[in-house]
């Protein structure tokens, strides 16, 4: 079997592997480090951190659904100061490549987070989560509004300067994803994360009420994979030069290759780690083997392959 160049880039950051954790599905890395070395994967995308510590929503916070699950965490976290003091040094010590995910309630909060992260060494990129569905007010999901999305990214870009890549994480729950994607790229995003969870609900038939404490939750897992592949395909078709970090129900190497063929330069694995704490390692191995079997000598040659004319094969 020929060896495959497995490296990839997002903006000006280089990664030896295209397999990352997904934000909110790896906490800050410590827990998964019991199962594999964090530097053995492409990167760790940390759980979205806000300016202040946050306790999150009431339980129940999860419901399993066919080939998926709903979660309603509500951005529980330690706040940016504790995160920078405790979690970043740990990840650096583990030699992990770090992508910090940030979330805010206001446009100013995102800029504040960017300012606090600006001087922190050892970060490969910032993922700007403007699409968390578990907030009190749907009006606060910036990614559902083209203008609000642009203004968040513009604020982060101005604050952080030109060096650190910004990845904007978008929601599939919109009418025109491509126009929102174009807006954030115009505002200074170097790359896009597609997709966040899809808003859903389960009714508990014992209580005849919504099962989750927060009533609605984000649907993840293989159930949403075709939605995510579609989103990656549409956005790559419109902006082939913008790198995409694809995610949504990836649980095998073949799933990852679907995203890459649709246009993703790298992929995040989230819910699969809940069912299998070593999922990232097996997906990474399977993808590498699959690329070799298909005759690719480089991951980059496979990115966006599904957009090529049949005649070019």
């Amino acid at each position: 079997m020929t060896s495959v160049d497995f490296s990839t880039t997002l903006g000006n950051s280089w990664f030896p592997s295209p397999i990352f954790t997904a934000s909110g599905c790896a906490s800050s890395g410590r827990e998964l480090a019991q199962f594999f070395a964090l530097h053995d994967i492409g990167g760790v995308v940390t759980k979205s951190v806000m300016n202040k510590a946050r306790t999150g929503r009431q339980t129940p916070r999860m419901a399993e659904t066919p080939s998926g699950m709903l979660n309603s965490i509500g951005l529980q976290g330690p706040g940016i100061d504790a995160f920078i003091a405790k979690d970043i040094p740990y990840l650096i010590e583990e030699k992990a490549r770090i992508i910090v995910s940030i979330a805010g309630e206001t446009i100013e909060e995102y800029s504040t987070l960017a300012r606090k992260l600006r001087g922190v060494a050892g970060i490969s990129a910032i993922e700007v989560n403007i699409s968390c569905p578990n907030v009190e007010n749907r009006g606060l999901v910036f990614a559902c509004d083209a203008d609000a999305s642009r203004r968040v990214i513009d604020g982060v870009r101005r604050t952080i300067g030109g060096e650190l890549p910004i990845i904007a994480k978008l929601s599939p729950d919109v009418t025109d994803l491509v126009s929102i994607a174009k807006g954030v790229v115009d505002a200074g995003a170097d790359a896009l994360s597609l997709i966040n969870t899809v808003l859903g609900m389960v009714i508990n038939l014992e209580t005849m009420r919504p099962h989750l404490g927060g009533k609605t939750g984000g649907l993840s897992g293989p159930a949403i994979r075709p939605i995510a592949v579609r989103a990656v395909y549409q956005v790559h078709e419109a902006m082939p030069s913008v790198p995409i970090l694809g995610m949504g129900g990836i649980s095998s190497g073949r799933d990852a290759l679907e995203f890459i063929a649709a246009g993703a330069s790298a992929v995040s694995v989230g819910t699969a780690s809940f069912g299998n704490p070593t999922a990232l390692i097996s997906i990474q191995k399977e993808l590498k083997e699959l690329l070799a079997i298909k005759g690719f000598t480089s991951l980059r040659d496979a990115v966006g392959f599904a957009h090529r004319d049949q005649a070019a094969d």
Partner: protein
Amino acid sequence: MQINATLISNKRIGQYHQLIINIGDLAIDCKPGNFVAISVGGDSSRMILRRAFAISRTSISATFGGTMELIVAAHGQGSRWLCEQSEGVSLDVVVPLGTAFGIPTESLPVLLVGGGYGSAPLFGLAEVLNARGCRVDMLLGASTGTKIYAPMEGKRAVNSLRIFTEDGSMGQMGRVTDPIPDLIADLNIAVIYSCGPMPMLGAINAITSKVGVVHQAAVEEAMACGVGICMTCVVPVADSIGAISMLRSCIDGPVMDGALVQWDKVGRAL
């Protein structure tokens, strides 16, 4: 550790199944209160999450090496699948997980209180406490007698065992919490160990907090991962200066200091 482990015995006991699983030397690391997470449904299953089960007992034998016992009630899709598995199948198991019950360093009179499906690990705990020289008394409760798990051999390690059912179909009619205040006074109980539904644990804590008895409670909250990454299984817990945070029952629990758990805030936003 994530391992492929062989199911070496699957026996139906009343409403429950007793599963014995070979986990080799990992059995040495399993303490009462620890739990396991098992993949269910096979590779093509639409059930994507593991199912968590308390370890009721472990043993090391010459024939099988290290094994663990699980007591499983087939009341959901995943547990039904597990109970249908035949001896010899390989299971994908993550073990051991969670924080175990604390064992006193000296011999003290202790009371074990179990509710419904949750009582199984108390028998393994009773053996450990008994070996430590503690006087162990036990109360088990459920809505009805078929939901009581009380194996004959489990009674060897306990000084007394009383059963309470709400419909009176087994033992005494009433709630398992009813006799606790008198038992604390009569037996000079120093520690209560509990596992079962959250309202029962909260009711026990209302008693222990008044009389200053230590309460080690194994909490129950729905979890997706079991290893600390999903943040779904949280319980409101105070720290030493009274600040309340949402702690993960999978790694900061399931055994928690009942005096610090904010029982009135369980299931509510802080």
